């Protein structure tokens, strides 16, 4: 899902950077003001977890590959804004140091994989979990479905960005200038990989990691402690 440089037109990539600068500014402020000092190590470990889990490439039949992200796990633990910041840090380092995802495309990648996934997944989770405990059957089902949905909506926005290039940017002779397949092909391919393979893996990874965190540090999963969003307003809401 990491879009490399060259696959997006500058007319797409640059505005996405312009969008993500204020979004990450807000996220940084939320983390600074609403998280406590002792929660920062959880954010660091969570962002590092996201970095490493993205290295576990899953073979997709037909010769492609996909991977889980861990963004919704972070959102469940610390709220969607902190998740957006943590995953963005991982994505920016992946682009700069490891060439995984482009530099021009880094705004688009942070938008899809950090912002869209964290928020879409988190609110799906909240909706399903309701008032149930995080570690209850319903809480775990909500974590599975929320992270599944979050990853798939991120795959969808990525596919739409890809496919839009084909329709909007062509050379005079009609050949595509950037991404080279239609929206239909991009959505069908990206979604089948993530609906069938990467999505269920994301769900499993999220549930197992939540169980691990809850078993070792139950306080991190305590229902609605003061510093976790208890009312769907993100980390900013002090109960």
């Amino acid at each position, binding site marked *: 899902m990491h879009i490399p440089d060259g696959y997006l037109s500058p007319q797409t990539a640059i505005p996405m950077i312009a969008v993500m600068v204020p979004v990450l500014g807000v996220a940084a402020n939320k983390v600074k003001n609403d998280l406590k000092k002792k929660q920062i190590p959880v954010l660091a*470990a969570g962002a590092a977890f996201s970095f490493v889990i993205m290295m576990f490439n899953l073979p997709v039949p037909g010769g492609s590959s996909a991977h889980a992200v861990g963004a919704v796990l972070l959102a469940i633990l610390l709220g969607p804004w902190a998740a957006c910041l943590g995953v963005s840090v991982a994505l920016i380092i992946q682009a700069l140091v490891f060439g995984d995802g482009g530099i021009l495309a880094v705004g688009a990648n942070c938008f899809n994989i950090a912002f869209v996934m964290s928020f879409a997944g988190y609110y799906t989770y909240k909706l399903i979990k309701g008032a149930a405990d995080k570690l209850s059957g319903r809480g775990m089902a909500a974590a599975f479905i929320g992270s599944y949905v979050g990853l798939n909506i991120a795959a969808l926005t990525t596919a739409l960005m890809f496919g839009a290039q084909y329709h909007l940017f062509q050379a005079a002779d009609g050949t595509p200038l950037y991404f080279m397949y239609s929206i239909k092909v991009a959505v069908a*391919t990206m979604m089948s990989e993530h609906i069938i393979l990467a999505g269920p893996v994301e769900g499993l990874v999220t549930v197992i990691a939540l169980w691990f965190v809850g078993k070792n540090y139950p306080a991190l999963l305590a229902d609605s402690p003061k510093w976790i969003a208890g009312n769907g307003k993100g980390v900013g809401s002090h109960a």
Partner: protein
Amino acid sequence: MLKTYKNLWWGLLVLIILSPLGLLATGTAFGEWGLDELADEVGFIPAGLAKFADFWQYVLLPDYSVPGMNAGFGQATAGYIISAVVGVLLVVLVISIFYRLARD
């Protein structure tokens, strides 16, 4: 940073050691083909794509590998683990800025 939540860091270390499992999936993800793969995967290289593909020239550990360590699966595995360690350290370094900024 590392003293609290020690078991989270131990868990992370286990994942880092297991990370070379990710090398078993040799296929490139959809829409992430390099210039060298496009001819096979797509059949041509779009003009705009060729222009911007190498925009960033300062990748130190390309595709989670250590340059020069390409001889066989053993070296690729070592390079992958080194990359995971470097990545984790950089992520923790950046996030730890917020340790100073956040309140008690």
